[in-house]
């Protein structure tokens, strides 16, 4: 029995694995991996295709003569159009940066007391947050519109930024992650005379950096891809995703530029994920929903 146990421990990763099943499973993975990756590869290729290749029949997947023309055209279009494209990019950046940073700050501030202390209402508040994970924003769309109009926020960037600050998934993940911070650390700081705000800012926040990046990865793509929804009407306040719609509506002549903007929209969130992947996985390990 003991010998068997040792033998098992020596080759832990080969445990209970038959080669044929492994082969089939990895084949499945490769197949679906291709299904996931091909459309994105296609979008990348498209951005570098000259116009004649974009409209070739039968359509070709890979680019033959890669060119930067589409990006030059994009820059040219930026200068010439009624509202310069840089404006759309600026608006998108403003919304995304404020929305993401603000969300991380507010969600962390709210998560810290919920994760570490019990006080009247703490359990109820957290269960409301969990409950709100169970329905989508569409449910509240109509009252939200009325609230926005009462606040006078229609056609301002605040209408996009402010509601996104209280995204409930972010608070949930942050709270779950903060639970792992050892209480002794907080007690020690308290004994040293730090008040709650100092503890939050100087001890808790630096310890939850992986969770910051996770909240960023969840919030950033949503805001980066926002088209302004029903709230923004002025051309000069609109976002990049909206501009993409306008450009592709320009028809065949704009197909190349459209592909270039699409690449721009896609690349930024993916690059961010590559940078932050290991932190995100660390946070997700604590994401479980307890009964």
């Amino acid at each position, binding site marked *: 029995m003991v010998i068997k146990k040792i033998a098992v421990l020596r080759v832990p990763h080969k445990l209970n694995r038959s080669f044929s099943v492994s082969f089939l499973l990895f084949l499945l993975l490769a197949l679906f991996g291709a299904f996931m990756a091909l459309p994105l590869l296609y979008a990348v290729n498209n951005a570098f295709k000259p116009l004649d290749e974009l409209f070739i029949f039968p359509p070709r997947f890979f680019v033959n003569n890669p060119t930067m023309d589409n990006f030059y055209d994009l820059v040219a279009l930026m200068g010439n159009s009624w509202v310069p494209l840089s404006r759309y990019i600026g608006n998108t950046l403003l919304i995304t940066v404020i929305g993401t940073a603000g969300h991380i700050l507010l969600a962390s*501030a709210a998560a810290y007391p919920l994760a570490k202390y019990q006080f009247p209402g703490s359990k109820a508040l957290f269960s409301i947050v969990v409950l709100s994970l169970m329905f989508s924003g569409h449910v509240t769309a109509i*009252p939200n519109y009325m609230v926005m109009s009462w606040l006078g926020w229609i056609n301002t960037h605040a209408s996009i930024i402010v509601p996104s600050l209280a995204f409930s998934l972010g608070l949930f993940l942050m709270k779950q992650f903060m639970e792992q911070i050892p209480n002794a650390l907080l007690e020690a700081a308290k004994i040293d005379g730090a008040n709650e705000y100092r503890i939050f800012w100087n001890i808790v926040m630096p310890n939850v950096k992986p969770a910051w990046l996770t909240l960023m990865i969840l919030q950033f793509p949503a805001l980066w891809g926002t088209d302004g929804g029903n709230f923004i009407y002025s051309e000069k306040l609109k976002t990049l995703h909206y501009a993409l719609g306008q450009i592709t509506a320009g028809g065949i002549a704009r197909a190349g530029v459209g592909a270039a903007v699409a690449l721009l929209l896609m690349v930024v969130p993916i690059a961010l994920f590559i940078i932050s992947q290991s932190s995100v996985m660390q946070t997700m390990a604590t994401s479980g929903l307890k009964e």
Partner: protein
Amino acid sequence: MQAETTRQAMPNLIRPEKKSRWATLRREVTKNKHYYILMSPYMLIFFTFTVIPVVFSMALSFFYFNMLEFPRFVGWQNYARLFLNDDIFMMALQNTFMFAVITGPVSYIACFIFAWIINELSPKVRALMTLIFYAPSLSGNVFFIWLIVFSGDRYGYLNGFLIKFGFMLEPIQWLTDEKYILAIVIIVQLWLSLGTSFLAFIAGLQNVDKSMIEAGAVDGIKNRWQELWFIILPSMRPQLMFGAVIQITGALAVADISIALAGFPSVNYAAHTIVTHLMDYGTIRFEMGYASAIATILFGIMIGTNKLTQKLLRKVGE
């Protein structure tokens, strides 16, 4: 830790006097006032844009309101109209369920299966595969790529491919033909659905206690399927619950993809869902009371499905 236990013990000591419960509460609130202050900015926004709107929406569903006149109380009339007089709502309901029944479980299982296979790979390959599977949900708003794939003319990728290899002679209008729309929206939704729960599953799998798997092998677990059912799934129950919440909510809320691919409204309402119906009445017809009734029903369906699924998931591995 110590502070917590003493705090919990305190109310028991003071309990006998009924009047002092309010005093205790007030004392507790003042003692913890810093925590309330820390939470207040988030909670203020959260309540303004999420909690109060849900309640408000429920109340509004009993009124007729067009944003111009003062709301008029109509009782259950909105609901009666929805279920008895609105054929398009019935279609939307049917499409949404059809859609959710397929994409919900399929995407949930796909998230888990792929996470499970990826977990066996070496760390570098694992990171790459995670990126590949997660990338579509990161670049989610670029699903117009699929418009090119399913474009109705010969330049559409699918049409071009099928014509080139002789499967058909004439291009098919994929996105305006009622037969195909729902299936296409489902495919694209699945492409986008390996999101947060997929990441949670991978992370959860990596944290399964390895010694438990070894102990299981000693106790007679013979293959990976038994290991999955008896060891891995039960120890991942919290992640499974979390993943279920995210996938169910996503599957029932489908609208953006349907609008981007099939238009709004879609041909003969073939890709009409509860959410697009809600948008129709809320943002085009401005029948806010009626739209609120739709939103309330959507809310009920979402919460109900989630609670039911959680009940089922508690049985996993038993």
